[in-house]
């Protein structure tokens, strides 16, 4: 059979004027695309990383990757789930989202008792807990990512914030931003690092102190805000807020339980004092044609 690209009426390098036709929120078969539509322009968002947990302080999860481009129409697709919140461990990495040849990685889980979990393809780095933070990862287009630091460094996918006394390191700014690091001192006034700002935002780190503890705020996304950290006197407070997602705002931290990341890839907030980290926001696929 011969193929002539000139007969493919969808041939164009621009998505200008295309209309949102489908929003896919679960993995499975691809249906509903009219016959004759051979290429679609896909927007893929990976799942956000879950917040970390330890007996003391932890790091927020990184935001899920964001990728766009033309692709053939596949038979099936994968939508990344949000990473699980850590329980005396790092948070789980967010799931990858794949539609044909457009791919977006999940965000890294925040560090807790164990180091921040790895991520891929534009996923942002997780903040540090008692174990290490992680860097963001190179994007679908090859854009560099940010490394860890206080604050995490800027990149397409921001780096995770490191832990620090008094105020944890903020997550790195990016398209997908990094999770904040924990506040590493256990007395006095302590504040977890805020999640980074971005199109999709990372979760806040936690504080664990006998004094006044405040969890780091979830990062502010372009479309939705992050959740606030819990605050109060003593170690029963100090969990971080979830980062703003592409579809919904992040949830507030509550007592020592991290806030959930906003739907659409927001990173989960970190737990403190053996609480449970916030789950990352789920990924999504948008199809334009």
């Amino acid at each position, binding site marked *: 059979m011969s193929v002539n*690209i*000139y007969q493919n*009426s*969808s*041939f*164009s*390098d*621009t*998505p*200008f*004027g*295309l*209309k*949102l036709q489908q929003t896919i929120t679960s993995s499975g078969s691809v249906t509903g695309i009219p016959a004759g539509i051979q290429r679609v322009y896909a*927007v893929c968002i990976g799942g956000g990383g879950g917040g970390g947990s330890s007996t003391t302080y932890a790091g927020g999860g990184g935001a899920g990757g*964001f990728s*766009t481009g033309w692709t053939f129409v596949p038979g099936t697709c994968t939508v990344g789930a949000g990473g699980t919140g850590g329980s005396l461990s790092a948070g789980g990495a967010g799931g990858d989202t794949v539609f044909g040849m457009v791919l977006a990685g999940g965000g890294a889980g925040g560090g807790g008792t164990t180091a921040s979990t790895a991520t891929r393809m534009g996923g942002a780095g997780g903040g540090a807990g008692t174990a290490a933070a992680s860097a963001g990862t*190179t994007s679908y*287009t*090859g*854009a*560099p990512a*940010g490394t860890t630091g206080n604050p995490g*460094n*800027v*990149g*397409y996918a921001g780096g995770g914030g490191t832990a620090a006394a008094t105020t944890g390191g903020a997550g790195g*700014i*990016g*398209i997908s931003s990094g999770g904040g690091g924990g506040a590493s001192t256990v007395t006095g006034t302590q504040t977890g690092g805020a999640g980074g700002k971005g*199109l999709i935002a990372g979760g806040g780190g936690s504080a664990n102190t006998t004094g006044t503890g405040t969890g780091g705020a979830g990062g502010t996304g*372009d*479309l939705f805000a992050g959740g606030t950290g819990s605050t109060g006197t003593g170690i029963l407070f100090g969990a971080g807020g979830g980062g703003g997602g592409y579809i919904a705002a992040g949830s507030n931290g509550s007592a020592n339980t991290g806030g959930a990341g906003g739907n659409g890839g927001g990173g989960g907030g970190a737990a403190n004092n053996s609480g449970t980290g916030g789950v990352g926001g789920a990924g999504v696929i948008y199809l*334009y*044609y």
Partner: protein
Amino acid sequence: MANPIRRGESGSQVSSWHVSSNTVTPNQQTSFILPHGLTLRHTVNAGTTSVTIPAGITWVYAICVGSGGGGAYAGGGGGGVAWGWTLANSTCVVASTTSNNQSGSYTRYGHIIAGGGSGSAGNAGGFLGGGGSAAQSNGATNYWGMPGGANGTNGASPTIGRIGSGAGGGGISSANGIAGSNGADGISAGGGGYCQTGAGALANVSGNGGNGLTGGGGGGNTTGSTTSNLGGNGGNGLNILTGAITTGASYSGIFGGGGGGIAGNASGQNGGLGGGGGGSNAGTGGAGILYIFY
């Protein structure tokens, strides 16, 4: 049934607007980042954080330019440049002018992001397409994954920077009478090197900034020679809207000139608007800029 996505040229038969024969001139503009057929709707400067896109416009084409690196002795690198389609968004971040020494900052719209040029010393270097500076970081890989160029080597025989999307800065001379090397050309050019010690009777001359869409700053502020110490010229930039060169500034005594930005000429040691690198001796890096087309 009519094709539901037909929209002018791009919806027509490809062969009708970009023929395969080499005997005719295609009617498609050859600019590789300026979106032919679209209209520039918004020019956004530093300090503005919101943009109003009309209802019904889903996709827009954005060109982001980060701020140039600030100069000290070596010139600062040009600000990074990134371009592409992104979903319409009401918020934006545009990089401000960069002060002495410091590396430039980022400009972001939707998921398009460009980093700053490398500063001459001090803080973290250039990133996301920013040009390099010999006293700090190499040129940086850009949004599209196009590799950055390494800085030239320093020493008695310094070398020019390497080309790249973010080009490398020129090497620093350690010998009297041996000029600092030029920054390399690139999308975002590298800053010029200078003479670090250079004590003696021979004339010391610093390197020029490279040329690009954003030009690098000239090196300078060398004082080792007992006869003559001269800065380097800033590299030229390019106004992508008009095709006109934006000029880098000439050196002035020991001070290097700023590099031309994507939207304006350099002024003395200061880089031009739109990411021009700063020249030596406290030249500021030009602020970033954001163009939105639809």
